């Protein structure tokens, strides 16, 4: 005899046990639902996966860098660049490291704090798709907005700007953020995490 048939002709004790089991299932499922509605995650996870406020998922990585050296972001010589790339990059490939999403980040550890000002020199190229022929890049360091560049055409452009001492914390960790307000979406319905904006070819800092 099936259990369902048993309960149909069951006495109060079996019915009560059935309701008890059903209540236990309901309570367990409600409890799990309550847990799932209150995720216990860090800010990076929340921003990327849940709130979707960034396309750049922070990673625990930092590249050692001594000013005065040019770091290549092309695939044939990007060994030094790879640890610097926190998020929002795709590659490196032959023509540089491509940005991915609305924001990209570089993080580098300086051996000593700069005296006054650092001069940043970046070689970048715009990703274009006619009719869009240019890309605006807004560059910040440790939350301080430093420079904005308009890259036009597919040819690489050298961008130079100063990083004041105040933008580098005492830890010597320089966090550079690249925002792309004009990123090119794969398609109108595609996710912004696939936006394309620039190719970074090289990076250099000089103490002034």
């Amino acid at each position: 005899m099936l259990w369902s048939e048993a309960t149909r002709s069951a006495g109060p004790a079996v019915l009560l046990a059935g309701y008890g089991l059903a209540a236990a299932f309901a309570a367990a499922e409600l409890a799990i639902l309550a847990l799932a509605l209150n995720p216990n995650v860090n800010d990076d996870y929340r921003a990327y996966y849940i709130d979707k406020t960034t396309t750049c998922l922070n990673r625990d990585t930092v590249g050692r860098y001594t000013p005065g050296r040019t770091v290549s972001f092309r695939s044939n010589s990007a060994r030094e660049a790879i640890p610097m790339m926190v998020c929002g990059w795709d590659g490196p490939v032959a023509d540089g490291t491509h940005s991915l999403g609305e924001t990209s980040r570089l993080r580098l550890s300086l051996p000593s704090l700069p005296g006054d000002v650092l001069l940043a020199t970046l070689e970048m190229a715009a990703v274009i798709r006619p009719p869009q022929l240019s890309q605006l890049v807004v560059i910040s360091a440790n939350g301080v907005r430093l420079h904005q560049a308009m890259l036009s055409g597919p040819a690489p452009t050298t961008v130079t700007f100063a990083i004041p001492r105040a933008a580098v914390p005492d830890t010597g960790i320089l966090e550079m953020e690249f925002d792309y307000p004009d990123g090119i979406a794969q398609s109108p319905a595609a996710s912004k995490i696939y936006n394309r904006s620039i190719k970074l070819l090289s990076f250099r800092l000089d103490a002034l």
Partner: protein
Amino acid sequence: MPPARVEADLALEDAARANSGIRLMVIAVVAVPLLFALSGLAIRYAAFVSLSADPSLTAYARALCRWDCKWYVDLSEQGYERFPIPNHNNIGRWGFFPLYPMLVAAIRSVLPFPTIVIATMASVACGYASCLVAWPLLEKNVRAYVLYCAFLLSGPFSFYFATFMTEPLFVLVTSCLFLALKRSNYLAAGLSCALLSATRLVGVLAVFAIVIRMFEEHRQMGGSAIAFPRWLLSRPDLIIAILISPAGLFAYTLFLHVTVGDGFAFAHVQRAFGRVAGNPLLFVWDGLSYHPNASWLPTAPQWSAMAAIAGLALAGVLAVRRQYGAALFCALALILPLTTNLASMVRYVVGLAPLTMLTASLLSTSRLTFAAAVIALPVACYFMTIAWLGDYLALV
């Protein structure tokens, strides 16, 4: 010979004939899917050999493992990641449900073969078992049964049932669920739904089919629609069957909350796959209208959009045939993924057992369509396997 003796002999003869008829039928029901499993293996292998220099069976199993299959192999071997994901990756395996990888891992613990070989064997076994379960669901219609077995095991999409995808288990458990419903065994249906919800997210939607079947039974017993909730509440066995249905999904949610901190990580990780919520109609329209080159062949998005339309149309036919539970389950199981994009739509349609059984039944109504389908399915198997091995996008 006395007349009574003659009658007894005739009765015995009839019984023996009936018994041998039943035995023959049982042999046929068992043998048909076996033959198609073997012919499917031969056809897919022939397609593989036409492209590969290494003819070994292990190389064949590895070659068929494409797209999501690789995720399932990793999941079965390494389990789920915590956060942060190792290797600076944004895409955790959380979007892939655990039941089938767990099953393959369990078999691997006792058999000394690579994961993909075990998964291939398990998938073919699931496909074979799905055919056996389909026999009563197809009302013991021999032609429909033959077509269904041919489609699943030797058909154009049989590679889904011969590699590490969730479809083999999903189809098997879906068939078990609808067989349980056919027999009004709600507890078995609820348990099947629990397994289904641990196999793929949309599996949980089968709970609607269970509730609809309960409602139909209530109406058949003369109950009014308005009295249904009270009747349901008077039956704890039915309440348990409903509440147990999402148990697989809830168990996985709890696991993710404990390990990742986010019980809905399976949904949230879709962002890293680039899935964006949108209007399903627009996605279908965009897919249909995507034809950038001059070729007369439909593009991959067009195939996906046509698969979605065909799947929804078949769900409509199920509804017309008053199979409301199956119709709603299939329609929801297609519309839910359609709210993000058209990806994997062909596979999702093929993985809905009520739709493929309906197609087999429809094609079996005429001898001509039956004969054409029996020939066309294995022929298509060869060419579609080649397309699959070539990473054709619509088959993702």
